[in-house]
């Protein structure tokens, strides 16, 4: 049977066909849909973890018990999971273990552009890289076989264009005859004390040599001989661009990008006149090929930043592309928080109070956009709280009061909780706002340990954030309604003035949460055109439902609310001094 699947759907299918028992992940674009699709296979125990390190550790446990397991994350998630990954490389596996990492060249939805292939090399584990959805499925199955054959975790690297690209996949039958999981005691292999680890390191080095040898003949690395004038070494989505731009060139398509099959590359190089490496981001393959003494061109021509496209590849090698029309500049269309988003009132207030806001990763990062302009830093998940804790240590008492950290519920549970522990412990006098919208919104509404639901959609324990913060040692924890601007402002002012760490938790769910609405449907607001003076106060919250309509003479105008977009949060009404905003008739 054939189906059109995205790379992420195909990885999920591959996990099912491979007989995976346990899957764990933290959502992160572009990797999120893998678990969301795995959940359709009832044979697999799939769950969200609070962060990527925990997700990998859950998979490690399942593997040690003899079950095949998979952990999925985006590139920056591997930074969080790196600690267990490196030691897992030493212990090896029980049941096969695959770590899927989805990179985001061009940073469509990420804070940096790191190339995860470096992690495979750093942790000394093999990495496979599929070039379309069929390979996503096939390589996932293969990764489990390699994992068990070589006693190693295997990384499977995707990128945005593979994860979210769709192509046709031939479905297969699930694997049979896998061993039943059971407890096996083997402390010499699984307890990584120095004495045991020293024994395992040579094993890891030898394993890499064996894997490179495997890659020399395995079908996962494929030579396609065509014209021998030009030979191209490539992998992943870059392979597709190469086929598009250089249809006649000979190609060595690598399915295993680490360790590299250097003998195979050398052999291929000897058969072609000119050799180039085409790869996105780092010169990962190129540097190793050069170090092996093979002369090759690559990053002199191909940019190190951003994703590759057929056009960029053409430009790199001076191949003329199709002529393009030019268009005049238009106003940009950046993403924006939704109409009725519960975060909007908080950022509006922070802006009014001239707070210095240390931000974090999530929908609310958009609070930095005009007209809210209420975010001053954003580094990585959890860093809002720790950087607030750090910055107050260098400021005067007056300036200290301005520092406010904002963090979402999911991000708080991801790593923010550790940061808050530090803040409480060291008594850093900053204010933390936990924007609790009861969901991981940015990646598409995934549940988390505070939402009360599991990935399987079963109701479960919900973390009590007030009690948690209190238990960490924060003495001043309060809950506010972020749609009530006066209440929000009063709470913020009071806590910012307090020379002690404090936490404000907002209590309105994301407008996209299906289980509970912020408001009843149908409560749409409108602007009474007779009362609107054109003061523009309501525009300051930047709600996409409110539009400024200039008057025909170009002098004054009036605000207008789009009834199809308004979610009735009532925040704009509180801003209008002339009572021009009210419930629509």
């Amino acid at each position, binding site marked *: 049977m*054939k189906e*059109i699947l995205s790379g992420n759907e195909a990885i999920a299918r591959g996990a099912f066909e491979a007989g995976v028992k346990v899957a764990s992940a933290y959502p992160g*674009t*572009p990797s*999120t849909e893998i678990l969301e699709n795995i959940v359709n296979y009832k044979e697999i125990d799939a769950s969200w973890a609070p962060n990527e390190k925990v997700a990998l550790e859950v998979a490690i446990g399942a593997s040690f018990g003899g079950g095949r397991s998979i952990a999925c994350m985006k590139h920056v998630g591997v930074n969080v999971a790196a600690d267990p990954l490196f030691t897992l490389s030493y212990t090896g596996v029980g049941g096969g273990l695959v770590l899927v990492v989805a990179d985001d060249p061009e940073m*469509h*939805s990420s804070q940096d552009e790191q190339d995860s292939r470096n992690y495979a090399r750093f942790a000394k584990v093999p990495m496979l890289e599929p070039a*379309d959805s069929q390979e996503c499925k096939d390589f996932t199955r293969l990764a489990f076989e390699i994992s068990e054959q070589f006693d190693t975790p295997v990384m499977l690297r995707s990128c*945005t*264009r*593979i994860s*979210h*690209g*769709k*192509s*046709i996949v031939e479905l297969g039958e699930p694997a049979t005859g896998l061993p039943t999981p059971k407890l096996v005691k083997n402390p010499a292999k699984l307890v990584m004390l120095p004495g045991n680890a020293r024994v395992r390191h040579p094993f890891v080095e030898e394993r890499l040599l064996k894997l490179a040898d495997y890659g020399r003949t395995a079908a996962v690395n494929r030579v396609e001989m065509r014209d021998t004038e030009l030979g191209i070494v490539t992998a992943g*989505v870059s392979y*597709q*661009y190469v*086929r*598009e*731009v250089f249809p006649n060139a000979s190609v060595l398509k690598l399915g295993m990008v680490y360790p590299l099959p250097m003998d195979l590359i050398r052999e291929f190089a000897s058969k072609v006149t000119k050799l180039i490496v085409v790869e996105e981001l780092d010169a990962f393959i190129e540097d190793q090929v050069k170090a092996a003494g093979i002369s090759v061109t690559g990053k002199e021509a191909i940019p190190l930043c951003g994703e590759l*496209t*057929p*056009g960029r590849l*053409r430009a790199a090698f001076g191949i003329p*592309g*199709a*002529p*393009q*029309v*030019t*268009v*005049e500049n*238009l*106003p*940009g*269309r*950046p*993403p*924006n*928080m*939704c109409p009725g988003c519960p975060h909007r009132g908080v950022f509006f207030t922070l802006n009014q109070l001239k707070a210095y806001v240390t931000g974090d990763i999530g*929908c609310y990062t*958009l609070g930095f*956009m*005009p*007209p809210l302009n209420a975010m001053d830093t954003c580094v990585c998940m959890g860093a809002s709280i720790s950087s607030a804790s750090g910055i107050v240590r260098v400021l005067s008492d007056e300036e200290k009061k301005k520092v406010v950290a904002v963090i979402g519920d999911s991000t708080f549970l991801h790593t923010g909780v550790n940061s808050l522990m530090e803040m409480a412990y060291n008594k850093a006098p900053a204010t933390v706002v936990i924007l609790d919208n009861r969901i991981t919104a*940015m*990646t*598409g509404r995934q549940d988390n340990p505070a939402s009360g639901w599991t990935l399987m959609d079963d109701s479960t324990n919900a973390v009590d954030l007030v009690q948690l913060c209190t238990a960490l040692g924060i003495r001043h924890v309060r809950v506010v309604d972020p749609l009530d601007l006066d209440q929000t402002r009063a709470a913020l002012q009071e806590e910012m003035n307090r020379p002690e760490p404090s936490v404000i938790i907002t209590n309105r769910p994301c407008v996209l949460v299906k289980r509970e609405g912020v408001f009843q449907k149908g409560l749409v607001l409108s602007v009474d055109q007779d009362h609107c003076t054109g003061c*523009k106060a309501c*525009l300051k919250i*930047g709600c*996409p439902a*409110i*539009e*400024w309509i*200039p008057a025909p003479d170009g002098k004054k*105008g009036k605000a207008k609310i789009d009834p199809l977009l308004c979610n009735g949060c009532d925040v704009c009404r509180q801003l209008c001094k002339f009572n021009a905003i009210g419930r629509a008739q």
Partner: protein
Amino acid sequence: MSDTITNILLVGVGGQGILLASEILSEAFMLAGFDVKKSEIHGMSQRGGSVVSHVRYGKEVHSPIVPEGEGDILFGFELMETYRYLPLLRKGGTVVANDLRISPPSVLLGQASYPDDLPDRIRALFPDFLLVDGQHLAAEAGNVRAANTVLLGAVAKQLDIPDECWHKALERMVPPKALDVNRKAFQLGRAL
């Protein structure tokens, strides 16, 4: 089957249902026996930002994204976004767009204006430009939200895909209770 690849771009604003429309297209091409690839961006851009989805079909498709300047058909869900992505089209390509304006933040705030001559600007570059009153026709079909399917019908007219493939694709991708309205919307678009 010839070796040519047909490149289709669907553009608009996050949240307009571009994903579903490109999914129906891809399904129809697969059912018609072609190789298909499709690509778009999720995450941040879904929150009301500018989005573009690439669908390519033919005997064998490599790149999942349409090479710059090689688009055959641009399928616009919103006027400003339609104009923005014209450089992806080849000369003489086809443009079909919904007559809909959605203001971006700078326009909402009164700092920029939404150009009112976009249909003319598009027509100047692509004379065969087809402007569709999607909202209106969708209402006629029974639901304003089926404007996407009206456009899909209008695009289907330009493509040589057997009718039954379109119908089967609609059946597979559209939820059962919305199917009748969508079928009707598709026909209205096709009849344009």
